[in-house]
């Protein structure tokens, strides 16, 4: 399911992905020391997402996998997003309206 025997990736493919991952680690560390204001978080998370995709698609063979596998992975990530989004919807809006009568 995740690695059908037809698709044996080359060592070269894996090595390239590995080097890119190491480079991205260096980039994210270096960028953290530069003051980009709010963009720091965006940069850090974007790089993290990029690294996750590389590991998932290449090392975990998601790019060769069935539609069902991809649905499962997307579903998991979507559900985490639901948890975070709806909870933060409360946390962020808490101060917006005062207590009636005060």
């Amino acid at each position: 399911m995740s690695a059908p025997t037809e698709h044996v990736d080359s060592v070269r493919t894996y090595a390239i992905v590995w080097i890119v991952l190491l480079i991205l680690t260096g980039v994210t560390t270096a960028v953290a020391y530069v003051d980009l204001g709010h963009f720091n978080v965006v940069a850090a998370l974007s790089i993290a997402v990029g690294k996750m995709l590389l590991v998932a698609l290449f090392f975990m063979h998601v790019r060769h996998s069935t539609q069902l596998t991809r649905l499962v992975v997307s579903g998991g990530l979507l559900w985490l997003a639901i948890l975070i989004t709806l909870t933060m919807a409360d946390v962020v809006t808490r101060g917006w309206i005062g207590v009636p009568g005060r």
Partner: protein
Amino acid sequence: MITAAVEQRETYLNASYGLKSWLLTKDHKRIALLYLGTITLFFFIGGVFATLIRLELLTPRGNLVSSDTYNKLFTMHGVVMVFFFLIPSIPATLGNFFLPMMIGARDLAFPRINLLSWYLLVIGGLFAIFAMVAGGVDTGWTFYTPYSTSYSNTWVIATALGIFVAGFSSILTGLNFIVTVHRMRAPGLTWFRLPLFVWAHYATALIQVLGTPVLAVTLALVFCERVFHIGIFDPALGGDPVLFQHMFWFYSHPAVYIMILPAMGVMSELISTFSRKRIFGYGFVAFSSVAIAVLGFLVWGHHLFVAGQSLYAGMVFSFLSYFVAIPSAIKVFNWTATLYKGSISYDTPMLYAFGFIGLFTIGGLTGLFVACLGFDVHVTDTYFVVAHFHYIMVGGAIMAYLGGLHYWWPKMTGRMYPEGWAKLSALVIFLGFNLTFFPQFILGYLGMPRRYHVYPDEFQVLHVLSTAGASVLAVGYVMPIVYLAWSLRYGKLAGDNPWKATGLEWRTASPPPPHNFDVMPVVTHEAYDYSTTVGEAIEVG
């Protein structure tokens, strides 16, 4: 097909003997029976707590138990009934037994993980029983912080650990069901030929897998806060107790759909068999199962309306909560439409099904009441909410469970239960249930708070009615224990298909052989095929 042949035939019950053959079994049917024994035990433990609660509530003052003890009683009633009875009940017993058979498989995808699931429930249960025996826990089954993390002097850690372990039992069962339904269907069994029982359990499994881990990590944080003093929810450190509630209810709201979806799956089987008719709107019912599973994850904030959640979030959650009623209503309409021009028989399982339709509808409609933000501010934390969820979980889920148990009893045991006693106990349960819980709607609306054992005198009449109902209900629940046990030895031999139902599980012997089918079935017809020659053949044969 009777007596002599049955004695010599190999079934899953007589294929091997001895304790080890049961405790180390990989057979999903035996595991289902292990679960049946376990959850029945927990049901009666939870029932003991309920009895003590209702006895205490006979009088307006705290006569029988102290307030601290009362806190423990309702906590442990909730913990046992939710985590150790309702959540496992239908999936682990009827689901385990019949899901593989309904899809024509020899077993689940991962039989050893199935056995592990049972052991995890037992181990979790032992932790919970230890907590009860050692002095109890008094936080409410909801474990709200900071009381549970900083102030309670009771066995929070042991109970949390027990629920944590039992949670993994649920997760693994869900994982097993999903893989089984995807990968082990018989040739010709496409998704839209599956019995709706399978669809329901598939949707349930999705919830188990996506929601339970969040409960697990939340309880782990409570554990860490009590044991290692790392205060995540401690307001003194800037922690947010409402965050606990978000995390807790992210699981615990979908959990109620874990409890009701399998019951709805049973309902589809019962209604179709005892109307001898295909379920009206099969596709709608199938999709609504998945819709309930998905939408159920978007509404948890309706438990936090008065907790300190922002008003805007409250409005969003209230709005979303109305939507989740729609697929449930679709199912009720479709079952009702199935009855129309059906050939209805009033065997015990069908009586439970009728009970479900009425009581689930009341429970579900009152759910819409409490989904309304304004109304909920008035009735939250009162007996109105208590009545609402008992109508669904007891009037709905437990009725369906008993209906399913009776329906499939002949298949599991090879014996018929005594119909007269069964009908009587169904009636006793129905009457006892309504007498217990209907007064609670009124009590709640009038302002009786939940989790209180001291109340104003004017509420006593309603409480006495409720307790009277509870004693009737208790009798109703004990009766099946007696006559089902009796039937194991003295019940009429059932034959392969006593109800003349469609469905693969009825095409093999009662009790089934260890490997389920002597000849692996190939499916060529849709489910509930009562109107074609296949259905007619079953009618005659």
